[in-house]
């Protein structure tokens, strides 16, 4: 056995949950189908058997009560990890997540803390149609008090989830459904992936590509393609949107002078909008070209697989857009 093992993204998440549950008795899992069923995507499989029904709690279909009771648990000294099966279902419980959890600390004058993780996943790319494929990370930029993690690979999935569970603030942890079965190397040793620390996944001098979640892989694929044409892209994975590691992004841009942002959310008002504007504010003079954003079009997600594939950002689109700058 070497220093690393191959795990799927789902397995890596499960390992994170297991390790933290072993380490800290206060960690509790709750949500729909997290117990007997093992999680809709099997992330929590086996945890009920290992930790019992006091710590792995199946709930009714009650998203309001899932997040609400998690807040109460956190206020009562536990460390809940609540699962909301699809990101779409957050539209049911945002009162609890945003109007309650994220503001509790502030409006109590700093007295309350709500150390909870809400895990969810977005299913774009899995032929789930309009109501099960939504991805709207940028909303949470308007929710001070909340952190937001977007792991792009098994290693970060594990490290970020462990770090999130140890946090003192509420965290929305958005997994990527299409990545659950993708494999990657994960260290055997215990490790934490810090929130707010971006990683340069590929070095390059010609253009900075900031990519989130699944799109990190697309950006890396595109970079290989571009490299063949002599364009060397630097690919940055911020890993968390809140907090955002502006420094890593800005210093890369100061080197490359060009920026492309790619993520699976709708381009209009998406993650890219904030990053683009931030860069214009803080590094305008370093920009040699317009910033490019790649996201989904302003259209609900179509069901048909072929149309859904056309709808999504991908390596080809990145290559095409980058080349337009040369």
């Amino acid at each position: 056995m070497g220093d690393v093992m191959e795990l799927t993204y789902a397995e890596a998440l499960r390992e994170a949950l297991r390790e933290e549950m072993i380490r800290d008795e206060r960690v509790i899992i709750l949500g729909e189908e997290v117990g007997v069923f093992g999680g809709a995507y099997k992330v929590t499989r086996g945890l009920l058997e290992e930790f019992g029904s006091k710590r792995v709690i199946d709930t009714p279909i009650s998203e309001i009560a899932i997040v609400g009771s998690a807040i109460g648990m956190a206020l009562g000294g536990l460390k809940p990890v609540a699962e909301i099966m699809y990101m779409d279902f957050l539209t049911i419980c945002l009162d609890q997540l945003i109007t309650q959890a994220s503001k509790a600390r502030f409006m109590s004058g700093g007295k309350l803390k709500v150390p909870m993780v809400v895990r969810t996943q977005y299913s774009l790319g899995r032929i789930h149609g309009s109501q099960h494929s939504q991805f709207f990370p940028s909303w949470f930029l308007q929710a001070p008090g909340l952190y937001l993690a977007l792991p792009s690979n098994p290693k970060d999935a594990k490290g970020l989830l462990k770090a999130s569970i140890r946090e003192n603030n509420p965290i929305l942890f958005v997994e990527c459904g299409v990545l659950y079965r993708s494999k990657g190397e994960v260290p055997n040793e215990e490790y934490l992936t810090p929130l707010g620390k971006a990683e340069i996944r590929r070095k390059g001098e010609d253009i900075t590509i900031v990519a989130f979640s699944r799109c990190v892989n697309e950006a890396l694929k595109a970079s290989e393609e571009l490299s063949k044409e002599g364009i060397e892209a630097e690919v940055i994975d911020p890993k968390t949107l809140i907090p955002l590691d502006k420094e890593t992004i800005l210093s890369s841009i100061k080197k490359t002078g060009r920026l492309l942002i790619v993520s699976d959310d709708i381009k209009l008002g998406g993650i890219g909008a904030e990053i683009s504007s931030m860069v214009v504010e803080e590094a305008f003079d370093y920009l040699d070209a317009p910033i490019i954003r790649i996201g989904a079009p302003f259209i609900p997600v179509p069901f048909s697989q072929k149309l859904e594939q056309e709808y999504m950002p991908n390596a080809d689109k990145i290559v095409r857009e980058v080349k337009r700058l040369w």
Partner: protein
Amino acid sequence: MELKMIKNIEPREFEKYELNRDRLLRLYRKMLEIRRFEEKVEELFLVKGILSGPSHLYLGQEAIAVGVLSALKDEALMVTTYRCHGHALAKGIDMNLLMAELFGKSTGTCKGLGGSMHASIYPEKGSIYATAIVGSGIPIAVGLAYSLKHQGKDNLVVCFFGDGAVNTGAFHEGLNLAALWKVPLLLVCENNLYAMGTKVERALSSKSIADRAASYNIESFVVDGNDILSVYIATKKAEKLIKEGITPVFLECRTYRMKGHGVYDKAEYRPKGEVEEWLKRDPLILFEEKLISLNYINKDELKRMDEEVKREVEGSVIFAMNSPILDFEELKNHVYG
């Protein structure tokens, strides 16, 4: 409160309920269509690997969609869920269009933009809405029923949902409003004992679903959802109450999913004995036995009917396969109207 359990009827009462041999055979055939359609869908997913994405089969619940919708007038408006293939067929939607929707083709009920979980949306046939979000159809159905009442229309809305929906905030707010507004709404809860892997009593604190519904001052009945005649009769009674009082009525239909929650789910969380017991109460077999005992049909005729239906199903697959997919450029034309 005491729950009202609606029982089956004797043949001598058939006429009173507009039933006769012909009618019953048509009901049977519709159930069979659903059965064969869903079996084909399952095969297309699991054996042939042609279809993908989530899909929730109606196998085992056929008596409910057919029983309810055949008892109501054609113009009744319907709101349903992701588990909607059965409702679509029972509401008279062309099988070809339904299958094409599952294939994501432009000839589908929703031009391939909705998919399996919304495939029953087809206002042309009074099938107004199907939501993939548990519980969310209920308040929508309440508003739809309000629109009927407001416009003085002699019609009603039927809203289907599962046992799991009962625990959502949308259910609560919706039922309360329905009762306050006294809208012509038939609420049909298909209690198939499970919401995904969760047995109904693990998620429901009240004695029964009908009991919970009754707490909103809504007339509530429990029905054997595997017995089409019980469902049919219950619906007729409910329709009468709805029309007389212009008021909602609630039916809890007890039934069982023959298969998993979604097409890929093996449903290993269900005890074997339980599954076996319920499979003995297959609604098609129960109805078949009844029809045979009434001498309305014989085994040979049943077999012929089955072959006919299977051909129809095959035809829908061919129709779907041969249909085109919408052009990506067209999508933007369907966002606003």
